[in-house]
């Protein structure tokens, strides 16, 4: 591509997709170097939402730290909670009782559906399909009602405690979830009718933001973005945590690694999540919901790394404990942070309008990136 050869296009335009923007999901600034409409370079400026969560982890006790973590990836707050509780339980050598694990699994999978619905809504609206957004939110509303009935909060739920869950299931939980899961696959079909075969959608998302599997692993991309590039890797199958090994589900994998593949992967993941929930909802055992452990959590000295598959990718927690009630170092490995690195690689050479599509397909949450 011959660029900047004539007198007229000798100048490159540096434009900043500023922090406040309807299409970047959160406060993200992308400095684009443009040549006409082609992107030559993209530099992300983050940190607008930095709240010092890791420093807080060092002064708050283990139990106090859990709600702080909800605020990180505020869209999929339940996964954050799950990851951290499992990490600390591993450190302590405690396992949550089966009933608690079932509750955790159901809530986490519902949360995955919520997160993907929000992703679909915002991604579609960035590309102009405004109605899909409202349909997704209609479904999301149902799940948030379930969350609210369970723990009182819709968004920053603080569902699980270290050792199990605190709240018992409410009357009618199983019916409500069952009803939702029965209707849900039809709704996903609805979204697919609107978008999957749509000529305009295909034109906007095919061959946009391609990243090969090898590059993806090298750049640390995880989650549906990695699976879109053909690497079949999901922590729920590779290193099963919670009780995922007891359930039967597939991992959707894409081929080319463009935006369209990632879209298909996430749509299929929603269906698979519904499948897992429909299997789990009938099998919830009775029993205690909290393991027997002391109220004051003082794990042994040492460090541990544990990761789960959050809707965005591999969410990891690295906790260094020095024997006291607060962590010595609480490190969160945010999937969106590492995923955002690949923005530059995906976007260079495309048009300006594609930057929006690629940011949408990476499914980033600024709360997680900036912590």
């Amino acid at each position, binding site marked *: 591509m011959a660029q900047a050869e004539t007198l007229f296009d000798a100048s490159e335009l540096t434009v900043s*997709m500023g922090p406040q923007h309807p299409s970047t999901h959160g406060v993200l600034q992308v400095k684009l170097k443009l040549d006409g*409409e082609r992107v030559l370079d993209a530099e992300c400026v983050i940190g607008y939402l930095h709240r010092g969560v890791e420093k807080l982890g060092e002064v708050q006790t283990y139990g106090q730290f859990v709600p702080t973590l909800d605020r990180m990836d505020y869209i999929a707050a339940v996964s954050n909670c799950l990851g951290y509780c499992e990490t600390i339980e591993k450190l302590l050598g405690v396992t949550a009782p089966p009933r608690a694990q079932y509750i955790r699994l159901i809530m986490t999978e519902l949360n995955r559906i919520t997160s993907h619905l929000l992703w679909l809504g915002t991604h579609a609206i960035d590309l*102009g*399909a405004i109605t899909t957004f409202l*349909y997704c939110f*209609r479904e999301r509303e149902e799940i948030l009602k379930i969350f609210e009935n369970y723990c009182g909060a819709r968004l920053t739920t603080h569902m699980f405690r270290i050792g199990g869950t605190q709240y018992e299931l409410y009357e009618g939980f199983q019916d409500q979830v069952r009803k939702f899961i029965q209707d849900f696959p039809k709704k996903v079909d609805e979204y697919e009718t609107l978008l999957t075969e749509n000529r*305009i959608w295909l*034109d906007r998302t095919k061959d946009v933001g391609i990243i090969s599997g090898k590059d993806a692993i090298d750049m640390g991309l995880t989650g549906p973005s990695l699976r879109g590039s053909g690497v079949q890797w999901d922590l729920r199958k590779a290193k099963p945590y919670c009780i995922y090994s007891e359930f039967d589900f597939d991992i959707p994998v894409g081929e080319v690694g463009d935006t369209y593949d990632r879209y298909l992967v996430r749509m299929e993941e929603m269906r698979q999540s519904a499948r897992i929930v429909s299997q789990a909802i009938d099998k919830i055992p009775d029993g205690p919901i909290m393991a027997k452990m002391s109220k004051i959590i003082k794990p042994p000295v040492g460090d541990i790394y544990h990761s789960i598959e959050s809707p965005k990718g591999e969410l990891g927690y690295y906790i260094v404990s020095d024997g006291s009630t607060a962590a010595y170092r609480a490190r969160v490995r945010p999937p969106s942070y590492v995923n955002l690195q690949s923005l530059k690689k995906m976007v260079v050479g495309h048009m300006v*309008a594609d930057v929006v599509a690629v940011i949408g397909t990476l499914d980033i949450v600024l709360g997680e990136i900036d912590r």
Partner: protein
Amino acid sequence: MDFAIDNIIIPLIKIGIVFGVLSGVVALMTLAERKVAAFIQVRLGPMRVGPHGILQPLADGVKLMLKEDILPAKADKWIFTLAPIIALVPAFIVFAVIPFGPSLELFGKTIPLRITDLNIGLLYVLSISSVGILGIILGGWASNSKYPLMGALRSAAQMVSYEVALGFSIMGVLMIAGSLSLVDIVNKQKEFGWWFVFLQPLGFILFFVCGIAETNRAPFDLPEAESELVAGFHTEYSGFRFSLYFLAEYANMIAVSAMAVTLFFGGWLRPFANYPLPGFLAFLDAPLMGLVWFGIKVAIFLYCYLWFRWTWPRYRYDQLMKIGWQWLLPLALANLVVTAGIVLLFIRKG
């Protein structure tokens, strides 16, 4: 005296009625857009102002009038004010040649239900709609700021490209009808017994797609949507001037719909106009019913406009231009050649 009545008073009354109705429809469109959007999106839309939100356009109008009228310091004041007017006026004056109905007998006079009948009506419409583009360019330029100018140029480039394909797509109709006058085109459709859409299906599709692109509506509204960087030519506009651009867009939509109806769907003709109706339905043939038929057809087209906007995502700018030049124009030319062949062989008979 007769001369005065025939040539001054009656046209003035007609102009008054047409513009009044048009302004009313434009205002109604703002409400219809929101209501249709709402129903597609599983919600209700404006419900408070008036029963089911009927008086919402009134509220919107009052609000826009009372808003602070910001004039950017570096903007060129006269052109800044003039640009939206240049965008709005052509949309309205297109209606001067569109036939709304057959002739009406009133007070012993035969009053044709149209403002005038130019024998180059079609040419007039095409040239006037090109003037509207000027309003957009001037708006972007007068704002004296980099991004609105870029947005305006993109908009203008898009409109100009699709104008070419638009022009070619209606030439098929022109050939079949044999006249540029819109009244003749409608009468020819009555004569043939078939609306031109059945004779020129491809021409109709091309016309409508180009029309959507002309009016900068989805799925071709990238220059105007929350485009990532360039916020469009009307960034710097607020208050009353902004509402003028807004109304210009709706008026253009109505103009394109009216043209589509006139050229392809028989104008004011009722369906199956050549077949007589049984006695009790004879009122459907009355001259004033022509207006009703016209109105129904235009309403269907306007609904399609709204439907498309809220259902489909939007095209990227380069894809948009590619479609206009690489697909629509060749198809329009092919349509032209095929139609010319058929007309020569069958209709004109040598």
